[in-house]
């Protein structure tokens, strides 16, 4: 079987201790300039009760040891820079290096959030221009950049729906969510004070209009919809969906996690969407960073603008920028200061690099790549919803499961071929889902290698399923015992 591993990359297999195990008293990785004011006697100023002499267990290492430690750790990771990262619904696309450079410029990285407005015109301009571009891309009227992540954007948007409906007389009680939705949707709805009502998808994986008609009562505040949905399929009846929600006095929320399928091609404002969030770390190339920081701007139609979190960045007639905090109908703040500013810098750099043509070409490539994978794998993996996709395609492991190999096993074996796995076991409406989103950042040669790997794994499963069940073989650690980790949690290092 070893000869099948044609695309494996090398891993550093040597061990790297925890930093706490490398420590030796008296070392430090920094030197301070001499103190140019009289030293302050901490134990006297603070008193014996408050003064701390020592942080027990803290590391003591030199600069080079720190550098080598984290460099070695990094080699055990896989990133977009390493290769294809086809995680469905995550949009793992190239994070341009110039974005990192401009986000670190003196004046942008160094301005304090309470800098007087007259001295922070550059930062305010970046916020204003980013919001303006996102409004144009979505067709919506106003944008807030305050939410720190997609899930916080959801919460913000739902709270705005609630505030609007409350002002109309009744905030209502329920929010509708399709069964194909991401888990953050119901969790955010719950935090916003609504109860979740799930609605079943139809045979095409889309919202069932009849089911929606039954569920959309006067008790329901609205519908939270992902479009294209988590199967990568466009909700063709979205205008009718919006009409039915609106006819009963509800509002339509769109989860914009999958905007990489739509930028430059279609705009949610035209679908009848009232409020939506974007993920700058998906569609707009801000790095995922191993799990954040993200950014989840919220875009709204004009009638919801009064409820945006305060403050809002404005441009005055003389071309200057200012923060407007006087917003009596605002839902309030969802985060201190103005959101993840550094992510706005990167997203704006990405939009400027592309321009309108580049963004449209990007969307086309992302959709072409997903359809190419779907076409070339459909004879070996089952396609539960057999229709053209947009930016991602979802297979089922049904054929492979008959031989005892599930989607997560296939994912682990893919690692040995040098690829990051796809998203396994989501969306929940597909049994044993393989959710593949190549993004526009994969070239044909890389896609062909990935397709070949997926086909080779299918062949392995036919020949020797047991072999696949023990994958991966090429990583520093093999499959980890997650059950023990959860049963007897070890969440920190302790001295022996």
């Amino acid at each position, binding site marked *: 079987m070893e000869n099948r591993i044609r695309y494996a990359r090398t891993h550093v297999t040597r061990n790297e201790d925890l930093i706490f195990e490398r*420590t030796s008293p008296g070392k*430090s*990785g*920094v030197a*301070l300039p001499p*103190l140019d004011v009289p030293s302050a006697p901490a134990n006297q*100023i*603070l008193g014996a009760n*408050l003064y701390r002499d020592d942080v027990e267990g*803290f590391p003591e290492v030199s600069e080079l040891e720190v550098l080598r430690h*984290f460099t*070695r750790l990094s080699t055990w*990771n*896989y990133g977009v820079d390493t290769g294809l990262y086809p995680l469905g619904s995550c949009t793992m696309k190239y994070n341009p290096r110039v974005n990192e450079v*401009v986000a*670190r*410029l*003196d004046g942008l*990285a*160094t*301005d*304090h959030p309470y800098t007087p*407005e007259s001295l922070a015109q550059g930062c305010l*301009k970046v916020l204003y221009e980013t919001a303006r571009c996102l409004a*144009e*891309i979505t067709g919506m009227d106003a944008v807030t950049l305050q939410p720190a992540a997609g*899930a*916080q954007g*959801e919460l913000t948007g739902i709270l705005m729906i*609630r505030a609007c409906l409350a002002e109309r007389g009744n905030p209502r009680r329920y929010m509708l969510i399709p069964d194909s939705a991401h*888990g953050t949707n119901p969790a955010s709805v*719950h935090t916003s*004070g609504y109860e*979740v009502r799930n609605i079943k998808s139809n045979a095409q994986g889309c919202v069932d209009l009849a089911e929606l008609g039954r569920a959309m009562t006067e008790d329901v505040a609205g519908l939270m919809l992902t479009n294209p949905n988590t199967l990568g399929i466009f909700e063709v009846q*979205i205008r009718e969906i919006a009409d039915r929600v609106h006819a009963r006095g509800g509002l339509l929320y769109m989860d914009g996690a999958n905007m990489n399928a739509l930028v430059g091609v*279609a*705009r949610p404002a*035209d679908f009848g969407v009232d409020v939506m969030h974007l993920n700058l770390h998906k569609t707009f190339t801000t790095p995922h960073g*191993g*799990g*954040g*920081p993200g950014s989840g701007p919220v875009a709204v139609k004009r009638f919801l603008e009064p409820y945006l979190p305060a403050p809002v960045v404005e441009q005055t007639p003389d071309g200057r920028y200012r*923060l407007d905090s006087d917003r009596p109908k605002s839902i309030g*703040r*969802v985060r*201190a200061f103005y959101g*993840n500013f550094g*992510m706005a810098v990167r997203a704006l*750099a990405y939009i*400027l690099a592309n321009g309108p043509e580049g963004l449209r070409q990007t969307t*086309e490539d992302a*959709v072409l*790549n997903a359809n*190419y994978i779907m076409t070339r794998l459909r004879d070996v993996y089952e396609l539960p919803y057999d*229709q053209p996709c947009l930016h991602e395609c979802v297979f089922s492991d049904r054929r492979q499961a008959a031989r005892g190999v599930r989607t997560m096993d296939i994912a682990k074996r893919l690692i040995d071929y040098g690829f990051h796995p796809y998203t396994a076991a989501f969306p929940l409406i597909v049994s044993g889902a393989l959710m593949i989103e190549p993004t*526009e950042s994969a070239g044909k040669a890389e896609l062909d290698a990935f397709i070949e790997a997926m086909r080779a794994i299918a062949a392995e499963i036919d020949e020797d399923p047991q072999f696949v069940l023990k994958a991966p073989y090429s990583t520093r*650690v*093999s499959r980890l*015992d997650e059950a023990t980790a959860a049963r007897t949690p070890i*969440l920190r290092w302790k001295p022996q």
Partner: protein
Amino acid sequence: MRYLPNSPAERAAMLEATGRRSIEELFNQIPEYLKLRGQLNLPGPLSEPEILEFFREAASRSSREYVSLLGAGAYTHYRPVVIDALISRGEFFTAYTPYQAELAQGTLQAMFEFQTLMTQLTGMEVSNASLYDGSTATTEAVLMALRITHREKVIVAHTLHPEYRQVLATYVQQQGIEVAEIPYAPTGQVDLPKLEAALSPETAAVVVQSPNFFGALEPVRQVAELAHQRGALLIVSIAEPLSLGIIQPPREADIVSGEAQSFGVPVAFGGPYLGFLTCREKFLRQMPGRLVGQTTDAEGRRGFVLTLATREQHIRREKATSNICTNQSLCALAATIYLCLLGKGGLKSVAEHNLAKAHYAAAQLRAVPDVGTPFAAPFFNEFVVKVPGSAEELLAALREERIIGGLALEQFYPELESHLLICATETIGRAAIDRMCEVYRRFQARANTQGSAPEIQSAPASRN
């Protein structure tokens, strides 16, 4: 477009493989009437030099030529160059959340080290892998306390960061939770008798910040006693955790939450930062956010995984402990690297420099006639100053000398007109402090000679 790897020929070959005749056919499922006609109205495309020019121009209209004495929840500390060298490695910054543990041991081990460092610093038993920021971490701590105690009232010190209080209010607005605020005593600390009077058997939690928004250290032990007598939990919020290098952690607390931006993350006009949340082990199952745990692989080697996911939204959906779906991994990595570089001795030294700078600045300011520091409580690197006359006018005079002289407190505390919140970290030189005091002296002299209407150029409105 330079970011796209496919050539026209490759696109054509792929399109043919899919059986489509044109790219437009790929979008057939979108109804024609919903498609965008024409192009987006956006600037660009820009080349790399043009992008640099655009952002350099923006960066030039900033406060970068100024000395800034702003703190108030975001702190300017020196960032060793090794931090950016390491977090700029593509394996770290272009990786996803470490759900595929075998391919993410780097991120996972670093987060395990972060969790360890945060427990050591805060004196708590467990830490999560970080949250959005200090305001949301403190809010999540309150929501956690509500779940643990099954009570519905919360008491918050008025000296908790005003924006943290605003975020808390947003989150609990639909949940029927009552939030009461306790005023501060003349020392600048929470008013203990008023706190005692406000506590009841329905109180889920007491929230204090230490050092608080005024920079004052709170009497955490006494607050804990009062809270615990009534069966309430104590949440201590910390916006400047560098203080923990020389100040005892709030060991009497049940949950410690806060902002760790001070640890190697730039102030960057407000974000991204990283919230932290640590607590007693018995509350672990109610903790929000990601947790990294140690385990072994099939061969018995040590490895790390995301664990206790049954608390989280992707498993529990609406029954999850929080809707949060991310941490601030790369910022937490920066904080981990920063703390490892400093180490035990470096952390203490940097904290001592902060203490010395702020106490020097306070002493020099107190020496100016009519200038005072009204709160007597001990402080770390931040303190409140009462100035002679208008705070806004003094700030304008300081700007003439390229100094941003702190935060006018009146916008958050209307009773504190003529009061500034001043922060002096290790990055502030003695010369700048002395220059600031010189401006105070001139300002005071003019105010003194001209009575109540000092003839200083009329100051722009608040924050301008």
